[in-house]
Each structure stands twice: as C-alpha cells, then as structure tokens.
C-alpha cells in the first residue's frame, strides 16, 4: 500500500538509481522464459513448431536424447541402451532395431509405463499423420513412404499392416523394423515420438490403438485431440496449464520422475510481443531468459545482471523467403484482386521463374547481414546450412542486382507484369524482427523498380500464420527451418521435396529434385551422398523455389543467476528455449 501512495507523489526527477543492478536471485524456484509466439498444439503427433515442441520435450520423454550440447552422442531416457551394431541391438542388415525399455517409469497421473505405451506412442505418431505434420519423420524410415495418404487424400490400403510389422513389442523390448537402412533414425527418435499414456488417451476418447478406429483420427483437426492442451507424459515437468488468455504455460516439476527430480520447481513460458516489456522483465529479474533477435542485440549490451552468450552455432536456415506457386485465392486477403491487373496477382504469379528470379536479384543480402545481423553470419549458398555435410560453400548465389531484377520482371508473363504491375501482401509472424526486416527490404527494393509494383507487409500471430500458410493463402511468406535432427536430409526433404514440409503448400514440385533427395537419403557412401546434395543445390539455384538468405550464429540473453544451461542447436527454439531439466538458479 505504501508503494501505491508513494507512486502518486514521487517526483520522477529524484529517483534513486536503485535497482537494476544485480541482486539476490529472484524467485529461485521458478524459471521464467519470456518469448514472442504462442504455441499451436500440445499433441506430440500434431505439433511441428518450435514453440509447441519446446513444451512437449520438457513434459514428455523420448527413447533417448542428445548428450548435453552434442548433436551426435546419445544418452538413454526411456530406453536403457542406445542400439548399435556393436552391442547387437541393430541387426547386421541395419534394418532391425531392438530397444530395451526402462522399467518403473511413471506417467504424470501415477500409472506405470509399459512397453505397449511406447509402441502405441510411435504408432500414434505415425498414423495420426496430419497434413505436413511431423509423422513423415518416422513414416519414411519405418514404412518407406512419407505419408499415409495418396494424392487424392485417400488413406493408403496397406498402412495398418505395414505399421504393425514395423513396430512391435518383444518382452521388455521395443522392436523397430525399418524398410531400409536409415542412419538418421537414432537422431530422429531423440527428439520425436515421445512416450504418452495409452490408457489416458483412450480414457479421453483418443485413438484406442485398434485397426477399426485409426482412420478416424488420421489427419484430424488439432482442437479435437485431448492432447491439444493437456498431457500425460513421463517427462521431468508436468503441464499444469496452458492459459491461452495470457499466452502462458505453467510447468511444475514432476517429483515422481524416474531420474532425480528437476532442480527448478516451476517453469513459466510466457508470450509477450512487446520487446520493451520483455527487456524490462529481464532487467527486473521477472524473466530469466528472453527471446531477442539479432537486431536487438545492441540494446541488451551492458545490462547489469544480464549475461549474453554469443556466437552459438545453429542448425537452421532462417529466414527463408518462400514463394507459393499456386495461391489459394478463396477468401484470401493477401492477393488483392486475384488478377494481374495492377491491383492484385493471379494464383500462379510465382509459377513464373522470371518473377522468382526478379525477387532473388532484388534482395540486398549483404546489407541484411551487415546491418540487421551486425555481421553475424554469411550469405547462405543453399538450403543446407554450413554446419551440415553436403553443404556446398562454392555454390553460385544471387546478389543484389536491380538491373537484372528489372530484366527478369520485364520477361515475366510475356511482359505483362512490368506493364500492368501488381499488388499483394507479404506476411511474417509477429515479433520476429529479422523476418519483418526481410519483408521491408523486399517491399522497398521491389517497389523501387517500378511504380506499378506494390507490396504490403502484414504482421500475423504465429498460429494464424501457420494456418494461413497451410492453406496456401500466402503468396510470399517468410519463415525458417530449424533442424529436427542433424542430417542434410532434414533440410533437403522439408524444404525441397514435393512431399516435404513447405513445398506442398507452395505447390512446388520438381521430380528431379525429388529423385535426388530420395537417392541421397539411402546413399551410405559419404562422398557420393555429398555429390548428390551438391547437384541438388545447383538445381535449387536454377529453380529458386525460395530464397535462402543467411547462415547465422545466434546469441542467448539470460540472467547471470541461471546455471546449468547447455546449448544444443537441435533442441526446439534453441538457444532461447532449452531443456529445463538441467537448469537451476544461483
């Protein structure tokens, strides 16, 4: 109450220069991470965005995980051993994996985990298979095809039998039978298909694990899942609640965890779009770590009690400018009139290669890296980032050349683009400053080419952005790709394969690229594999399905009392988000 009264009479001029100096640890039992975006779903079989996966990987356990910051060495979680040919748990032909499972693991509702729960979780992860969801990560190695549906969106007839053959239980072991040798499978299972309770799922009217009902849950709407906002996992934290009103997650330590309980009792993950507010929360100690893009880096320097950890390697390609080759114009406010009449664009505007090349030559790559990223990064040479095998550092790239850009626009649509002009909207997810800047650079440079060229830039919340993108309503959208697992296939497939994560919604399909990606995925000879990826990147340069802008390094901003943080670039939302289990405050 004294504060309330003091507030009314305190003259601003005479403020004590108290108190953003470092002090005692604030809220020592609670770790608070303040970020920008709200999650999409808590269902492990549905979620495929870093905001959702960050929470999921802290409330569920996978079979194993990466050891601290390593992207190669694995340590067991639900499994008791990491399969290898040496320990005999991988068959000599490389197709059968026997995975011994831990006993005595409890779910958050107190029930004991069984091998059937593990089998159910993996089957559910594959069979729910929502459009462009994460299921392809396991479908491809285990069943040999990336989706359970054909091009007419009908369920393939043999999926159930194939899945039954691929995932079985033998005693306390889970047995996985791969369609063909597939080296990245261990990395995939380190971050995907976490174990959930079959009993809880069935009790909450989710799939009951039978053949009769699985098709009903295939590609279902996110809100229908009982796991949309609740969970029953075995991870170190329980999801206490997801308050969609305040955009806040509250996680509570699971004291029945099979390992020692986490050191932190509560974790709060909160969405605050305004950077000024996030920064003040960090300075006041109410936030222990915040999301802050590279352009904000200079504003965070020298804050007492705040630590910046810089030059962190990433396994991502971000930002990427995607072109939609066939825009869905139904109920679409992004395409103007929907025609090439100067007030809009036709649905197939970006199907014209000259339009795409015009945009590629109109982007200022050097200035973006120098001014926006403070020089922290190099221009990307393809979809596969510099940290990956298969990356070609000598691949030709586009550069700012407005004369070439104009020349391509003059050729596009038989000269009609240049003559009539166009008008459409580019979207980026709210609060992401580099992506916003990319949009503004595109707008400035393209509009500078011809007064008839008009581009609007719109900020859109993350879940709505995802929905609009999934609906192919965005003519251009700026997003990125964070590795699901450390392998070049994880960039080539989602970004360039016609059944990957982005191309289906861009309506981009190149049979030659598809063939190379599929060939490289099963190629075990590193040299041959490298050549295939080099060829892929050359094709990518020619076709320009999207613009790769930068190979970036990241930084993390946290209070200096936060201890135990380890950077693992594979972890969702790294380096801002993290595995909370190792964290403590001191």
């Amino acid at each position, binding site marked *: 109450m004294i504060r309330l009264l003091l507030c009314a009479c305190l003259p601003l001029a005479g403020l004590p220069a108290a108190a953003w100096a470092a002090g005692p640890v604030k809220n020592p039992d609670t770790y608070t991470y303040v970020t920008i975006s709200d999650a999409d779903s808590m269902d492990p079989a549905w979620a495929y965005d870093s905001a959702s996966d960050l929470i999921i990987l802290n409330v569920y356990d996978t079979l194993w995980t990466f050891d601290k910051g390593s992207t190669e060495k694995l340590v067991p979680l639900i499994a008791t051993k990491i399969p290898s040919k040496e320990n005999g748990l991988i068959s000599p032909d490389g197709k059968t994996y026997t995975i011994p499972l831990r006993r005595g693991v409890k779910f958050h509702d107190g029930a004991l985990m069984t091998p059937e729960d593990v089998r159910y979780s993996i089957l559910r992860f594959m069979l729910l298979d929502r459009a462009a969801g994460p299921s392809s990560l396991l479908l491809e190695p285990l069943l040999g095809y990336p989706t359970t549906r054909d091009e007419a969106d009908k369920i393939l007839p043999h999926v159930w039998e194939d899945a039954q053959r691929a995932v079985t239980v033998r005693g306390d072991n889970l047995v996985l039978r791969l369609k063909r040798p597939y080296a990245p499978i261990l990395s995939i299972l380190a971050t995907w298909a976490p174990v959930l309770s079959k009993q809880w799922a069935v009790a909450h009217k989710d799939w009951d694990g039978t053949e009769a009902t699985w098709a009903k849950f295939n590609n279902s709407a996110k809100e229908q899942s009982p796991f949309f906002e609740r969970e029953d996992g075995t991870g170190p934290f329980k999801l206490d609640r997801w308050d969609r009103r305040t955009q806040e997650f509250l996680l509570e330590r699971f004291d029945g965890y099979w390992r020692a309980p986490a050191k932190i009792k509560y974790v709060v993950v909160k969405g605050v779009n305004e950077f000024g*507010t996030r920064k*003040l929360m960090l300075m006041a100690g109410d936030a222990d770590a915040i999301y802050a893009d590279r352009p904000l880096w200079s504003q965070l320097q020298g804050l007492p009690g705040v630590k910046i950890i810089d030059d962190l390697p990433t396994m991502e390609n971000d930002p990427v400018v995607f072109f939609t080759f066939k825009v869905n114009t139904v109920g679409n406010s992004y395409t103007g009139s929907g025609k090439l009449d100067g007030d809009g664009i036709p649905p197939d505007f970006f199907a014209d290669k000259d339009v795409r090349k015009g945009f590629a030559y109109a982007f200022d790559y050097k200035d973006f890296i120098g001014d926006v990223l403070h020089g922290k990064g190099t221009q990307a040479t393809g979809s596969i980032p510099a940290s990956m095998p298969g990356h070609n550092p000598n691949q030709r790239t586009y550069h700012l050349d407005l004369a070439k850009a104009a020349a391509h626009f003059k050729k596009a649509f038989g000269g009609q683009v240049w003559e009539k002009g166009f008008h459409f909207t580019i979207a980026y997810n709210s609060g992401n400053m580099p992506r916003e800047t990319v949009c503004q650079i595109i707008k400035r440079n393209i509009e500078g080419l011809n007064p008839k060229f008009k581009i609007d830039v719109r900020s859109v919340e993350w879940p709505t952005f995802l929905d609009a993108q999934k609906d192919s309503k965005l003519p251009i959208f700026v997003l990125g790709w964070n590795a699901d697992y450390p392998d070049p296939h994880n960039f080539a497939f989602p970004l360039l394969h016609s059944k990957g994560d982005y191309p289906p919604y861009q309506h981009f399909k190149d049979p030659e690229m598809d063939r190379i990606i599929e060939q490289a995925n099963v190629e075990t000879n590193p040299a041959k594999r490298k050549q295939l990826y080099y060829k892929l990147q050359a094709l990518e340069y020619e076709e320009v399905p999207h613009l790769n802008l930068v190979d970036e390094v990241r930084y993390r901003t946290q209070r200096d009392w936060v201890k135990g943080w380890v950077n693992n670039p594979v972890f969702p939302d790294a380096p801002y988000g993290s595995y909370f289990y190792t964290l403590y405050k001191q």
Partner: protein
Amino acid sequence: MLKFILKRLAFLPFVLFGVTALLFSCLQFLSPEMRAALYVKDPRQLSQLDAVIEKYGLRKPLPVQYGIWLKQVAHGDLGYSETAKMPVADAIRSFFPATFELTLVTFFPIMIVGVFFGVLSAVYRDKFIDHLTRFVAITGYSLPSFVLGLGLLMVFYGRLHWFPPGRYTLDTDMLVHSDAFRHWTGLLTLDCLLNRQWAAALDVAEHMVLPAATLLYISVALLLRITRSSMLEELTKDYVRTARAKGLPERVIIRKHALANALIPVVTLSSLLFIGLLGGVVITETVFDFPGIGRWGVQAAQQLDIPGVLGSTMLAAFLFVTANLISDILYAVVDPRIRVGN
C-alpha cells in the same frame, strides 16, 4: 423518472437492431467465400466451402441472411476465434472481466480529477492552478500512450521494481487457478478480497497501477478541458450574475447553480470515455501485457480473424448503446427540463 427509463429501455433493442444490421451490411462487402471462412476452421474443410455457403445462406438476399445470422447470435453462436483459440463467446467471457476491472479502477479517478480540477481551473482562471491543469491537459493530449506507458514501466518497474506488467504474479496465478478459489464476480481484485486473500488482492491491484495511471493521464485531459470551458461559460451567464447580486456565497453559486449546468456536456463525455475504456485500450493493454478485450480485438483485426472482429465489435456496440442509455438517464437527473420535455 421510471417512465423515462422504461421508454429508453424499450428503445434499446431497436438501437441494437440497427447497429447489428449496420455491422452485418458492412460484412456484405466481403465475398460469400470470404464470409464462409467464418465457419471453416480447418483448411481441409475448404472442399466443403459451397456446402457452408449453402448452409448459412450466404447467397440469399440480405434481409434473409440477416435473419439467419440474428438467430445464430441469439443462440450465442458467434463463431470461433483463431486468435484467442476458443469460441468467440468464451473469448469475450475470458477477456472482458480484466478490461472491465481496469475500467472501473480508472474511470472514477478520471471523473474526480477531471471534474474537480476542471472546476478549479475555471474558478481560478489564469491563476497558477489554471496554468497547471492546462499544462496537464496539453501534455495528456499530446503524449502518445505507448511513450507514457513505456516511460512509466521503465521508472516504476524497471528501476523501482514496483509495478510489474501482466495480470498477476505466479503465486496469485496459482491461487486463482486453485480449486479453493471461488470466482464470485469475475473481477479479480474483488474476488481476492471476497476469498480473503489480501496479499493476492494487493498483487492484482499493483498490476493495475501503471495501466490505470497511463489511462488516467491520457484520458483526464479532455475532461479537464470540457469541464473548464463549460464552467467558464456558466459563470458568465445572467443567472450567476443575479445570484451574486443577491449576495449568495460564491461557494453556493458554484456548487449549486453553475456546476449542475456545467455537468451536462461532462456527462456526455464521461459516457463516451467509459465506453472507450470498456471497449479496450489497445496500446495500454499491449504495453502492459494486460490480457484484456482491446489486445484481443486488435490481434483479431490484424489477423483478419473475422469472428473475433465481429464479436469484439458487437460487444463495443452493445456497450455504446448501454452507456448512451445511462447518460440519457443521467441527463434527466442533472437537468429536469429533459424529463419535462419528454
């Protein structure tokens, strides 16, 4: 007076009807396909777009469509807001109490400060107090709310660590979500008091100090100016001169005669102010991370979340009509000639 109120109340449904008809007509600028997107929550449902258009009669004549729509609204079906990730009716129920509470704690100080200092400013024209209130009014007018809001946050939260953004701290968060906590009114401060959770009530109140102070400063300016000018006008009228000539004390002239007449424009303004606050104060709620209806409304508008936009606009229209009714009643209280005229 009762007859007057009943007459006005009877008029209320017709006004709401007009407002909703206008709202609905505005929606006709969107194509049937775009309006059908109101009911299409999943991209895979797009193949059923024609069925949706048929089901909701989106190609039917406007009066027919309006009838169908009104029937749905009457059944509480306002659609699903993707921004809020919940049905619109739930979103309103979820976001409105926070805004209402902020409005209540802001509105009365605005009225007291605005009227009191407006009168003082008029009575002591060109004196120090007049200059001071005019300075406050001018700065309140000209200072953008996000600048003031962030400035207050930097000083009182960043430096002094007193008034954090958001709705409450984690302790209060857990308390209000516990089974033991009863939500009697939806107004969190009051509910905390009714649950005898004094510390939580203080915590919630502390979180409202800065947004309330920001709103007070930017909203009081107009009220100060209107009260001052209205009062100045009344003080120069013949009846005031007559009262002075009769030897009535100045205090009585100001309080009993001039002030009553000067309040009529103030009543109009205050009702508009109240609606403005209830409709949600977008920038203030965004800067202070306050989960109110304004923040949701603007997010819905930014993302073309049409059900969200429609729901929040409907609420604003309803509030406007209700506040107008209240101000009409207050007119009648303040000025009996209005009742007599009716």
